[in-house]
Structure formats: C-alpha cells, structure tokens
C-alpha cells in the first residue's frame, strides 16, 4: 500500500525552482531516506508533503489525502520532528508528551498509559518529572521522536533528526526508528550522514531540486559501482550547479 505519492511535484519561488518535477512513492512501513546537499530542495519538498506549503505544479497524496486540497487530514495523520528537536524546555518530560497528545486529539484516557509506555521504551521512566532543559541532547532527541509518534501517525517526517548527536546516541535513535517501522509507521527521513542512509530501505538523492537517484542502498551501490553511499552522494553532488543555500 502506498502511503506517499508524489507526481511531478514542483515548487517555484519567483524565478527560482526549489523543487523541480519530482515523482516518487513510499510504501507503508518503509524507511525512506531523503538525501541531498543543503539547498537541494529537501526541506521545501518535505514542507509540501506535510501540508505546510502548496505545490506550484504537480500533485501529491499523503496517507491517502491530497496534500493541496486535504491538508488538514494530511496533518492529522502525520508526525513531524524537526532538526531542532522542538520540545518545550520549560515543560516537564511528560508535559511535552501530554501537550502533543492534546493537540493531536489523542483520547484523554489514553494519554497517561501512552506516556508511561513511551517513557518505558526510552528507558527514562525516572525522568518523567524532569524539565526537558535538564536532559542530555541524546535523550532530548529520542523524546522528540516519541512526541512526534505519540498520536500513532501513519507517517512520520524526520528532518535531519540526528544533527549534532554523537554516534552512539545515533545508533540508539535508529533502533527507535526500526521499532516504529515494525509497528507499521512509515518513516520519511532526511539526513546528511551517509552511514545512516545505509539503514534505509530505499533512498532518493536530490540535486538542484531534482531526484537524481532512487533505489535501495544495495542497488544504488551496484548501479554507481561504489563501495558506499558516501561515494555515490559525492558523484551526484558534484553535478550541482547551485551553491550552498
């Protein structure tokens, strides 16, 4: 079953074409890596899929809803985690979870059990009443992921979720991602760590607003005759005409 469908999606800002005619599909429960250099158009594409920005041309469906005409339903069925781990630092751990539960309309009597379950999964039951600002960065990151999937969305969009976190914490984080994927949550993740790209079921690589490659890491390595994703990425990124940003 396809949960994300993009058909010739294009976004222009004046004369600048940020996203240029991209098409792809993502299956349910898949971990889809969305790669590209800074300024390649990743964030703009993701904003369109999240219903934050309207496509100039083209068509997209997320969780079975039209991203342009049914953006409210799209929003209700997705989770989103930004690279800033946007938690409220002056709220306690459980209050952050309750807040997003309330905003996404999680039934009241389910909120407490879900908070306990989420904290247990993260192994931070003792930190339930801790202010978020007192948590180490790696924990914040995991907590941000838990809040993003607190309402059991069909798809979760992760925008460079592992920025600035050490490798050990990144590995733990990917365990959470696998766990969510096993439960049937589709993962749409942007990253610039190429070792993480290897963890994805399929990856797409954007260059100058276009998708230049899209396949499983294994098939891509074969097609590009490369040892790892890093080499493929550099081969493609070298073609880029746009500067950084």
């Amino acid at each position: 079953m396809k949960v994300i469908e993009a058909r010739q999606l294009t976004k222009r800002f004046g004369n600048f074409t940020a996203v240029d005619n991209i098409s792809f599909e993502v299956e349910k429960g898949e971990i889809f890596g969305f790669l590209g250099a800074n300024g390649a158009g990743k964030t703009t594409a993701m904003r369109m899929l999240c219903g934050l920005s309207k496509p100039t041309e083209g068509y997209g469906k997320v969780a079975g809803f039209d991203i342009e005409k049914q953006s409210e339903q799209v929003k209700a069925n997705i989770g989103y985690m930004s690279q800033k781990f946007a938690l409220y630092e002056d709220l306690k751990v459980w209050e952050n979870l309750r807040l997003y539960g309330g905003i996404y309309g999680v039934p009241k009597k389910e909120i407490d059990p879900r908070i306990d379950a989420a904290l247990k999964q993260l192994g931070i039951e003792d930190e339930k009443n801790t202010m978020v600002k007192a948590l180490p960065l790696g924990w914040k990151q995991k907590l941000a992921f838990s809040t993003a999937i607190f309402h059991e969305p069909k798809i979760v969009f992760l925008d460079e979720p592992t920025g600035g976190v050490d490798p050990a914490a990144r590995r733990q984080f990917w365990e959470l991602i696998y766990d969510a994927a096993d439960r049937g949550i589709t993962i749409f993740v942007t990253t610039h760590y190429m070792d993480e790209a290897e963890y994805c079921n399929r990856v797409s690589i954007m260059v100058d607003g276009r998708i230049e490659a899209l396949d499983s890491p294994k098939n891509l390595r074969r097609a590009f005759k490369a040892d790892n994703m890093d080499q493929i990425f550099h081969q493609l990124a070298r073609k880029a005409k746009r500067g950084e940003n």
Partner: protein
Amino acid sequence: MRQFLTFTRKEFYHIFRDRWTMIMLLAFPVIMIILFGFGITTEIQNSKIAIYDPSKDIATNNIATKLEISEYFMLEEYLDTPDQIETKFKEGKVGMVVVFGERFYENLLHTGEAKVLLIADGTDPNTASTLTTYASRIIMMYQQELLGIEKLPYSIHTEVKLLYNPTMKSAYNIVPGVMGMVLILICALMTSVSIAREKELGTMEVILVSPMPPLLIVLSKVVPYFVISLINFTNVLLIAVFLLGVPVNGNLFSLYFVSIIFIFVSLALGLLISSVTDKQLVALLMSAMGLMMPVVMLSGLMFPIENMPIVLRGIAQIIPAKWYIEAIRNIMIKGLGLKDIIPELSVLSLMAVVLIAASLKKFKIRLE
C-alpha cells in the same frame, strides 16, 4: 476546544515558570505606577528656602512668615551676607533664595516701589519656575492686603480654580498614562516575544505541522496575555485609587470596556511585530522602540500634545495610546460616560479591527 485548552495551559506554564517573565508581567506594572505616581511628581511641597533680608522691617517679616506658613516652603535659614547665596545653592541645601531690597517697607510706603529678588536653581527649570510662581503669588497676596489697608479704590483679585484636579496632583495625569504604557508593554511586547521565541526554538514549525488551525494557535498565544493584562489593569487601578488617591469619577464598566478595546489593539500590534521577525531580540527591540517610545513621548503622558510641533502632533494622532489615555482621563477624572468619549472609542475600535485583520492575514500568509 481541547487543543485550545491544552495549548493555553502550556502558555501559562511558560509564564509561571520563568521568574523574569513573572517579574516583567506582574511586578513591573506595579513598580511603574508607584514610581510614576510618587517619584516623578511636579508638585512642590516643603521646599527649602533661605532669605537674605537687610531691611528686617514689618513688611519683610510679614512676607517671610507668609512664605513659611505656606505648605510649599520651609524656611531653612536667614543669610547674613549676599556672598552666602551661591554657597547655599552649591551645597544644594535650598531650592530658592528670597532677597529683599534695603529699606523695603520705607521704600514701599514712600516711593510706592520696593524690590524683592527671587533666585532659584535653574538646573531644574520645572521646579524653579513652579517655586518662583508660588513665591510671587504669596508676595502678591501680601501686596493686596496692604492695598486693602491703604483703601485704594480699585483692586483686582485673581483667583485660580483648577477643574477636576483642584489640588494639582500630578497622579491625576500620570495614572491614565501609566495604564496605557503598561497595557502596551504587556500585550504587545510579551506576545511578540513569546511568538518569536517559538519560531526561534523551532516549536512553531512543529505546531504548524499539527492539525491545530492557525487561528486557534494565535488565540491560545494571545489569551493568557489578555487575562494578565486585565489583572494588571485592576492592580494599577487599585493602587491609583487607594494609594495615590486618584478618584474614579466615571463608570467602572466603561473603564474596563475602553481598556479591553485597547488591549485588543495592543495584542494585534504584538502579533504584527511577531509576523515580521523570527528573533526574540528583534521583537523585543521593535516593541520597545516602536511602541514604548512613542507612547511615552507622544501620547501626552509626559508632554502635552498641544505644545508639540505640527508634525509630531500629527504623528500623535495615530498612536493608539493617545486615544486610550484621553478616554481614560475623561472617564476616570472628569467622570464622563461612554457617550462622551465616542470619538476616542471609534478611533480605537477602528484601529483594533484594522490591526487584528492585518495581523491574522499576515499570520496566514506565512503559512502559504
């Protein structure tokens, strides 16, 4: 509705958990009104004066006594030589020195002309001119008494009556002004900073991706500051009445009604500012410079608008606080009703509608 309540509760947490926000929101208005009400005052009471009197006759003694028994002055000392005058000022001991001419009474009787010199400390021009005015008045009164004794056929008695503020209390003027300032500060500054903060931290983006409608986001951000503004208004009003002795001559309901409209205007200004910037610091500076300064300088709080150059007088007309302060003065001090402040009410309402529409539109545009 639950989204709204959850989000508003979060907003209150932000406020209550940050000590500086709390101080800013609740203590600051109280400090303002007390400072302005007591500290910054143009009233003169018991000002210390010195007298140099080479005549020491019945007339000068009389005038000196009159000065001393008035509530404005307190006689510090008699000077022996004119040289002491400057020393006294330099020491800062006296605010004014009264210098009588020689053979004061004799001259007055025979030539019909006697001289008295009032020297005041001009480094504080307002106080100096008030002191000399009061002293001249007292001397004039003595002169009139003399005239009465001499039974001259004509005399003109000048009496001054100040309406609404008979004792010339500056608090009457300051209180409405501080109300305008406090409301602008709380509503516009705090709202714009709190929205800019969410943008800076990235939480706004996450909230925008959620199914929460933009209008609801704006409302939940604004409601806590609306509530706190009303609390603050009440605080300032209580202090004004019970501590500063400013009466509420008009209708209390009208006071709140005008204030609520002004709060809407201020909140919309805060929203507008936050839609222009993503940085807390910029929002803070814009609110402080763009809103606070004009309110202090041009709303009539400090300087009378009538005395301003034509350009500034024009600018003053578009400052919401100017209309609000005028309306509050009319209701509170003059005791007028809502129908007497229709012009102010209309201008404020129009501003509120335009600003709210503009800020909501801006907020939506940002979402595309």
